[in-house]
Structures are given as C-alpha cells and as structure tokens.
C-alpha cells in the first residue's frame, strides 16, 4: 500500500529532524507555549535582522518535562511560556539557568523579572470583564463584586482550572486569604449563567448573544475579535471593563522566557531574549497580538488603550504563583466546574 515512496519521505523526515537541531552555527532552538501564529512573525523579523535561524517546537503542556528528560543533550535554548505559575514551575523543575544581561535589566522593570534572573517577562495581559453594552450600565467593577447576587445568572466564564482563571483566583487568595476567596468563589459560582466551558472567545460570544451579561476574558482576545470579520459583531456588542481588586489593581499575567540549563546556543539565545525585549518586538507584541508591552515607552495598541488606563495590580507576581495550588484546590472544593 505505501511502501517505497513513503520509505523515502520518512527517511527525509527522519534526517531533517535528526540533523538540524544542534549542529549548525547561527541558530537558536525555542520550545514554546506561545501560539506559533503570533510568535512566528517575531522570529522571522529576528532572523532577517540578525541572520540567526529560529527553530521552534510549540506545545500546550509537558515541555518542561521534555527538556528535563532530554538532559544534557537537550537541544532547547529557550522556553517561552505564558502564566507566572508556569514560569516559576519551570524554574523549580531545575531546567533553567540565570540570564545575565545588563541590557535586559535596563528595559524590563524589576517586578517583571526574577531577582536571580531565571526568568524575564516579555509581555503582559490583563484578565478583565467583557460586559454587554446594552444590558450593563456600570463602567467600573471590582473583582469582589462578581460575587454580588445582583449578577445572579448573568456571568459566563471558562473552566476555573484553566491557567488564566487559576491565576486570577490565586491573586484573590493573595489579596484576601483562602477563607474569603472560598466565599467569593462560591458567590461567583452562584452567579454563573451556565457551567464553565469553552474558551474566552465563547465567553465573549455568549455575552454578545445575550446568554449572559458579564464574561471574564483576557484583553488581547478582544483586540483579536475586532480584526476578525466574523467575530467583530461580538466585540461591537460588548465593552471591556478593567476591574480592580479592592485596594489593588487589575489582575495581570505575563508571558516570559527561561534560558535552558544546557542551552547549546547560549549566545544566540541571549540575543533573541534581548531582541524580544527590544523596541521593534515590543511594538509587535502590542500591535500584532494586542498585549501590553513591558518595555516602558512603547505605545499600547489603540484598541487596547481604549479600555482606559490600566492600573496593574501591584501584588508581586511570585506571590500569586505561590497560591496556584491553593486556587486549584478551591475550585475543586466549591465544585466550580461541576
């Protein structure tokens, strides 16, 4: 059925896979949790500027384990990830080495990097509320208010175990402690219009269709919706409210980068990290993916700036990461997803 032709193409695949990673000069190998569609334009720009080729594997989970298993022979130079909890876990897994770069320290604010240099954040997003323009008059909200019975049957959200919500709940614990967070989560659960499911885009879609009045989602999805002709009507029917914690700010999370312990192309890898924190890349983060750039002085995309001035929660990211497990346990305990 498939003999000779496929033997040849298989051989080609095998050879291509086996030879390219570690041998050639002038390349850098990236293991990525970030979407290829977003990150590829950045890599292409980096390659055309520096001549350094970027090889990529993108996945949704398990890359830390892969790097760990591969050990000293691992071709991985960099791990690109989202979510502070995940970043800290990668560091805890012992797969990182400190990034030493004075240039980076100059442009990445101190709260967005590990004091010992094991990770640097590259971009930022906020977890906010998509509210129906028609049915929600309020223009400001607190996260605490989401548990107010006035919203009964009016809130949509994806699974409480998704990392975006996990970090939000962890932030709540960091602010108010576990007991209060449990009460709050029960209250939010009681206000849900439907079982948690789908993704942020379904949440926005359900708000637009009137299934619920408030949806919890990330800022960049809203930007992406506005440039997608099919999703534009959802964005048009909703407005973004930047909620804040009482006595705090809007919950933000970051995407970041970790330098692999056995990185075979360390010099190129450092160059790529510095480039990602550079002006051009930071503009691309803002305008292609609608994230908040971390480098001071880079303009936020107008679609995102229209939400109002972001007052990022001053709670240190590592404190939020510390509550990750507690947040997951609370979601179980109140049966949030059930």
């Amino acid at each position, binding site marked *: *059925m498939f003999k000779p032709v*496929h033997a040849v*193409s*298989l051989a*080609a*695949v*095998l050879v*291509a*896979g*086996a030879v*390219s*990673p570690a*041998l050639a000069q002038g390349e850098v190998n990236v293991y990525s949790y970030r*979407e*290829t*569609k977003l990150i590829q334009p950045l890599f292409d720009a980096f390659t055309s500027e520096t001549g350094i080729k970027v090889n*990529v*594997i*993108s996945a949704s*989970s*398990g890359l830390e*384990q892969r790097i760990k*298993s*591969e*050990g000293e*022979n691992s*071709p991985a130079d960099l791990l690109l990830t989202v979510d502070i909890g995940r970043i800290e*876990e990668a560091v805890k897994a012992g797969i990182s080495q400190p990034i030493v770069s004075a240039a980076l320290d100059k442009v990445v604010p101190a709260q967005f990097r590990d004091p010992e240099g094991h990770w640097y954040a590259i971009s930022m997003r906020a977890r906010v509320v998509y509210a129906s323009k028609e*049915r929600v008059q309020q223009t400001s909200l607190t996260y605490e208010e989401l548990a107010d019975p006035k919203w009964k*049957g009016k809130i949509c959200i994806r699974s409480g*175990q998704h*990392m975006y919500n996990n970090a939000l709940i962890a932030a709540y614990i960091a602010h108010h402690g576990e007991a209060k967070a449990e009460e709050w989560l029960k209250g939010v659960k009681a206000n849900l*219009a*439907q*079982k*948690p*499911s*789908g*993704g*942020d*885009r*379904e949440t926005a*879609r*359900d708000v*637009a*269709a*009137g*299934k619920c009045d408030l949806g919890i989602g990330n800022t960049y*999805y809203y930007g*992406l919706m506005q440039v*997608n002709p099919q*999703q534009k009507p959802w964005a048009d029917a909703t407005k973004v409210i930047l909620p804040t914690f009482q006595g705090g700010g809007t919950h933000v999370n970051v995407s970041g980068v970790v330098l692999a312990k056995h990185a075979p192309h360390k010099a190129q890898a450092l160059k790529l990290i510095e480039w990602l924190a550079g002006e051009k890349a930071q503009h691309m983060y803002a305008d292609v993916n609608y994230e908040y750039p971390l480098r001071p002085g880079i303009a936020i995309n107008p679609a995102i700036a229209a939400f109002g001035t972001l007052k990022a929660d001053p709670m240190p990211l590592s404190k939020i990461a510390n509550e*990750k*497990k507690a*947040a*997951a*346990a609370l979601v*179980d305990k109140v049966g949030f*997803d*059930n």
Partner: protein
Amino acid sequence: MRFDTGGPALRGAAGRLSADRIASLTIALAAAALIALPLASLMRLAMAGDSELWPHLIAYVLPHAIVQTALLLIGVAAVAALAGIVPAFLVAGFEFPGRKVLEWLLPLPLAIPTYIAAYVYADILDAAGPVQSALRDVFGFRTGAEYWFPPVRSLGGAILIIGLVVYPYVYLTARALFKTQSASFAESAYTMGATLWQSFRYISLPLARPAIAVGLALALLEALNDIGAAEYLGVQTLTLSIFTTWLNRGSLGGAAQIALALLAVVTLLIALERTARRRQSVEGDVQDGTVTRRLPLTGRAAALATLACAVPVAFGFVIPGGYLLREAIRRGLISGIEPSLLTALATTVALAAAATVVVLAVGIAATIPLRLAPVKAARPLLAIASMGYAVPGTVLALGLLSPLVAGDELLNWLSGKLAGVQLGLVLAGSSAALIVAYTARFSSISIGVVQAGLAQMPREFDESARLEGAGIWPLLRHIHLPLLTPTLTGAALLVFVDCLKELPMTLLMRPLNVETLATSIYQFATRGSFEDGALAALLIVLAGIPPVILLMRMPDARETRR
C-alpha cells in the same frame, strides 16, 4: 481485544514445536516491551509522587469525575453501537437505495478529530450560532437568556458529538465481520421466516460480537482519552482530572497515579468482557466458499435502511465537513493555500503511513505466532501490549520521553566507543520518536483487530495444514494472511487515520520545526479562531478518504473474483 491461545487439538502438535514456542514468546515479549517501557516510566513517576493529594482528590475531584466519565462512556457506547452496528449489518447483508455510496461514506467521520467536531457544533448550536439566532428572530426573543435551548456545551452534547465521530470504529470492525462471517446463516434464517430483527439479533449479532467488542472498546477508549472536546464542552472527565492534577494541583506523580488506576480499571473491564465472551463463544465458518448475496429490500424497509445509514453520515461527516469547507472557502484558504500547509500534509501522511506499517507488523507478530504455538506466559504480555490505547496521549508521551532518551544515551555511548562520534538525540529528537509513540499507542488496534479476526477463523485450517507438515511461515502466508486481509485492511485504515489526526503526543514529541496537519489546526485554535485552520482540518479528511475507498473496494473485489 481477545487474547486467545491455542485450541486443544493444536496444543498437542504445538507441544512438540518448542522452537516455535520460543519464537512466539520472544515476539510477544518484544511487542509487550515496546508498550511496557512507557508504562514503567509512568509507574516510576507514580511512585516518586506522594499520596498527600489523595484525600483531597477523593473528597472533591474523583467522585464527580467518575460519575461524569461513566455517563459519558455509557452514552457514547449507546450512540456508537447504534450508529455503527445497524448500518454495518445493513450494508453487509442487504441491497437498498444508496447502499454503495453510504457504505464508503459511513467510515468518514473517523477523519474528523473530536475537538474539531466539538468546535463546529458549538459554532452552529451555541446562543450566537445560526440556529438560535434564527429561533430568536422567529419568536421575537431579544437575548439568549429568555428561552431554553439544549446546551451543546454539556455532557449530553459531548455524548452525541463524540459518539457521532467515533462510531466508525464499531462500524468498520462489525462490517468486516458481517461481511466475512457466513451471511448465509442470517440469510437462511431470514428466508425460513425469521424476521429481519430475529436474524440480526440471534444470528448475526452473536457471531459479530468479538468484532463489535473490539470496535466499541476502541471507540470508548477514544472517548475516554479525549481531552480537547471534554474540556471545551465542560465535561469533568477522569482524563481531565489527570491533567488538572498535573498542571494545576502541581503533582505529576499524582497524575500518573490516577492514570495508572484508570488503566487498571480499563484493563479489568476489557478482561471481564473477554471472559464473558469466551463463555458463550461462537466460532463461525468464515468464507467457506459460498458466495454471499445481499438480500434486496423494498418499500418502507428500504427507505428505513437508507435513513439508518444516512443519519450517522450526515451528523458525523457532512455537517462538520461541510462547515469546514464553507469556512475554508469563505476565508479564501483554498485559493491561497500556504506552502507550509502542503509540507505539513506531506509530513503527516509520511508519518502516518510509516507508523501504520510498523503497527500492523506489531499486530501480526504479536498474535499469529501465538495461535500457532501457544504459550500461556505470553497472554499477560499481550495484555500489556494492548494497553497503549488506554492511556491518554500526553501521559503516554511523558512516559516515553525517558526510555527514548535512555536509548539515545546508549546509542551515543556506543557510537562514542566505536567511532568517537556523539550522535545527539537521534531517537528522542527526531521523527522516530513519533513513530515509536504512534506504535505504542495504536498497536492495540492492530492486536485487537487481528485477534478478533483470528477468533473467527476455524482452527481446522491450521490443524489440517499442520498435520500435512506445513511450517509456520507457509501457514501464515497462504492461510492466515489472505484470510485476514479484510480485517488487516480495516485495522490499517483505523491506525492510519488515527495517526493523521493524533494531536497530544505529536505536540509534545515532534522534532523542531516539524508540523503536522493536527498541530497546524491547534495553532489556530489556541488563537481563538479554529476556523482559520479549516483547510488543515479538511486536508486530514481528504488524506483519510483514499484509504477508506481502498478498504471499501477490497472485499467486493474478492467476491467477484470467486
């Protein structure tokens, strides 16, 4: 999945053939080792993890997950059995309008990944979708909260959606058996006055039970291991709890423990079914040379038969496939096809084809020698070799990482000693890792299907050939393989299409810069716009169609040759 060793008559002959017995034991051992390695590293992970999470899991997570999983499996079993067995029986034994087209359309939902089907049906049936929008327009509702509509993102939705894309496992295995088993039984019963239902219920169904059991087991394991559709549709399955335990509760060890416990339950259930089946074992006289004719149906019976076959095709294939086609055209994806997508297509097909060949070889090597020279000790080995399918893909991939790297370290040590060269990660860092992963995962398909086929084959064939002095190889070549061709082709199709759409293992284990069609779709889906990946999804379907057609034509060609 049937692990049958020899019948009494053969056992006497086999006792003399100790070389054969050693050979078959060795082969079974090798096949089992392939799957046992990742399981062993899972066990290592499980033992390294502590048990402190269990009180929490037992109090808050597992009861709900067990109930949800059980309901999902029962529901999917019902949908897949109904949508698989009835059409298989009809197209194999009867003539009715549209039979020929429907016969080869029926397996096509196999090429639709479950998570894609879930996305499509949510797009169509969610509050913002065309169906509810039309309802709102007609009845004058303003918002989606003013009326009740069955939620598609729910357990019920998951049962229907998953059931409608996994039923082909049942259809294909059952159809192959309905075709090869002597339909003459059913036919004579029917002409002797039994109703269609009676001949189906009392003759065809019991004869096809081993095959149906294999098909259902595959369908249910697919449903059990699904992660994308369950998470999206909000169903808290055990598999999902394995992932949340790993990623959120921060315990890879605990996740491995749940995975192994789940595996134990699945193995137990399969063993129970097998025992029950053996107690009422029916051995058919397969393809004894009589030409099977299909009974023509007329009038209402014919219309009902057409309908029964058309409904699964419509919901499992035409609607999701048509939706993807519309999205692909709407986005101009077909006119402006990206070269990277063609590369992904070539990679996908090459990987799937290579893996299929290996998986079939493992299936044959692990089962047929054991029929010829039965060894009791080989039974548990085969049981192990069939477990890969019962482990969620990502978990199996995690288990494979260490053995592959260990293999690489051995190779590097050898090459260093012999030639002074370091090869790097030639296994773990290349596409070889994917072939190994697909083989570990999908060998249970070929093993199970071949065993079901062998179980149907009368032992007199083997015995008379052996008495006439035929060795193992001639027996294999001239009797078993030819008789197994339809079953093997069916297994090849299942494996090939499963490899085409495999996502979790491919994501984690593929080499740098290698994308398959499934990983391409994933890239779009993570950006909240899976429709942009519609063309990649369509290409999976298209790549799956030629082998389906090939499969559907094969037994017919044999019939006409007779």
